[in-house]
Structures are given as structure tokens and as C-alpha cells.
């Protein structure tokens, strides 16, 4: 029973860290990306549509790894393989 509680506690911490660090990295990345886009659009307003398209492309690249992390974190929350490995043994 204790091992199950330990694994669940550790999983919750891991999920929290994944979400938190992913959000941190993504937020900083988007901040820099958005700032550069606004600077570029302010310098040359006629390029704004092209820059906007490129910004969206880079935006999806920036939050790709964060989303992959979220996918894994949700997987650990609802279908935890570590728990599944321990459960038959612990009963």
C-alpha cells in the first residue's frame, strides 16, 4: 500500500513539474517571439501579414515540446504505467 501511495505522490509531483517548467519555457519563448514580431511590424508595417504567418509557424514550434510534455503528464495522471507495474504485486 505504501509503495502505491509513494508512486502516486511522486507522479503528482512529476506532473506538476512537467506542467510548470513547460509553461515557464513556453511563456518566455512566446514573450520574446511576440516582442520581436511587434518590433518587426513596427519597423516595416507592410511586411506584417508575412511576419504574422511566420510568427504562427514559430509559435507552434515553441510550444511543441511543452505540449508533448503535457500529453505525457496527462498520460501519467490517468493511465499511470508505474502504478500498473506495482499494482499486481501489491494487490
Amino acid at each position, binding site marked *: 500500500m505504501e509503495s502505491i501511495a509513494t508512486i502516486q505522490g511522486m507522479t503528482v509531483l512529476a506532473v506538476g513539474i512537467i506542467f510548470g517548467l513547460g509553461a515557464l519555457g513556453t511563456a518566455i519563448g512566446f514573450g520574446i517571439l511576440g516582442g520581436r514580431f511587434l518590433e518587426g511590424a513596427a519597423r516595416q508595417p507592410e511586411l506584417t501579414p508575412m511576419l504574422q504567418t511566420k510568427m504562427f*509557424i514559430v509559435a507552434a514550434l515553441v510550444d511543441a515540446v511543452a505540449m508533448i510534455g503535457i*500529453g505525457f503528464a496527462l498520460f501519467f495522471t490517468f*493511465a499511470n504505467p508505474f502504478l500498473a507495474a506495482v499494482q499486481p504485486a501489491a494487490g
Partner: protein
Amino acid sequence: MAAVEHAASAAEKAPTANEYIVHHLTFLKNREPGGIVDFHVIHWDSVFFSVLLAVLFAGSFWLAARRASSVGVPKGFQSFVELIIDFIDTTVKESFSHHSRVIAPLALTIFAWVFLFNFMDMLPVDLLPWVGRFFGVHYLKSVPSTDVNITFGMSLTVFALIIFYSIKMKGLGGFVSEFTMQPFAAKNPVVKVLLIPANLLLEIVPFIARPISLSLRLFGNLFAGEMIFLLIALLTLNGVEQLTGFGGWLGVIAQLVLGLVWAIFHILVITLQAFIFMVLTIIYLSMAHEHH
């Protein structure tokens, strides 16, 4: 786990939150997987919806092409199809500077198919499973891009195309030299051979990371989106009975507001992810076609 859920649904009690979510995350499969990788398992619901959406997209565009009239202003569905074709044409021309008959149809297929996959997430979470229950289907996941198998199938196909076109355009020698002579180049043949391990490492990692990230980016975004829809659906888990209390009404109103907000934001996400998958495919294939 499945037995517990069957007992719960047989007794017609409201499921617990965890049961509800796990039930909605379970695919309709022919057998339980015997490990992380099991090629005997087929997800019937993913296969059904992906084939259905492919037939829908290809069929309607083919019909529009057959009935296309080049006289006068295009109307209705034809003008919509022309809009999409124009968009794909512009996007391909921006990123792909070589000759290929495959790239534009491929880009159109990827964009339309992935967008239709993602669009299935906009339907209410319980709608299709409710319909499925009338047909005796107890587990139904209607969004194919939340199935890692589907996203990896598409990205591995793109990966195979990248390798095929790299070898076709650069030759086998050119393809190998792309991995062994870059990014550290040397004139001396001995130094060249010495640098091969470093070059291999620096080139293989991004090369393998591309299909994996292409597939998992789409999966992660859609899985997270579906998960939030499920969590919003949990707010009215107790059905009509919860309308007797203040908390129950709060749940209904919160679900309406949150569901609306998230659905509107999700419209951006589904279009963006389909666009990104297409653009990255075009860029990777453009890099594969490059030869000096």
C-alpha cells in the same frame, strides 16, 4: 478496470470522475495490448473515423472538380475549393523552390485530413459515444489525432518520403555525405573520417527528432484539448439530479461558459496544428530536394 466500468454502466449509476475520464480515453479495440508496442491491436474507432473523413474530403473535392465550370464566377462549394487550393498553392510556393508533382497534393491532403481529424474534437464529448451505444459500441474515441498511432502513421509516412526524395535527388552517396560531411567539413581525407562520428551524432539527432516531434506535437495539442473538454464535461457529471442544488446550477453555468471559451480557443488550435503539420512537411521535403 473494464469490468468495473461495465458493472457501473450496467447498474446505471453515475460514474465517478476518474471512471468517466478513463472511459472516454479508452479506444475501441479488438484486444488489450500486451505491452507498450503490440501490433495485433487495432483501434477500430480511429480507423473508422479517419477513413470516413478521408472519403468525405476526397469525395467532396473530387465532385467539385468534376462539376467545375471554368465559365463565369465560381459559386458555392467550387469557390470554397478554389479558395483552399489557392491557399495551399501560395503556401507551397513560399517554402518549396524545386519541381515536384507530389508536394502540393500531399500538402492539401495533409492539411485537409488533419484539420478534419482535429475538427472532430469540436463535437460534444458525449455525442458520438451516445450514438455509438445504440449500435452496441461501448467505447468510442472520435478524434483520430488523439491516437498516437494515427499521428505517427502520418509522420512516419512523411519521414519515408523525406528519405526517398533525399536519395532520389542526391543519390545514395549524397544522402550519406549529408550525414557524415556536415556540419564539420575538412579537406584532408583522414580528418574527414575522424570527424564522421561527431557529424553523425549532430545530424542523426535532429533527423530522428523531426518525425517524432511532428507526430507528438499534433498528438499532444489534441490530447490536451480533448482532456480539457472532458474535464469541463465533468462539471455536470451527475446529470439532471444536480439541478436541485445551488452547486449543481453553478456547475451547469460554469460548464456553458468554460465550454464556450475553450471551444472558441480550440478553433485556433485545430487550424494552427493542421497548418503547422503541412508547413513542416513542405519544409522538410524542400530540404530533402536540395542538391548542389
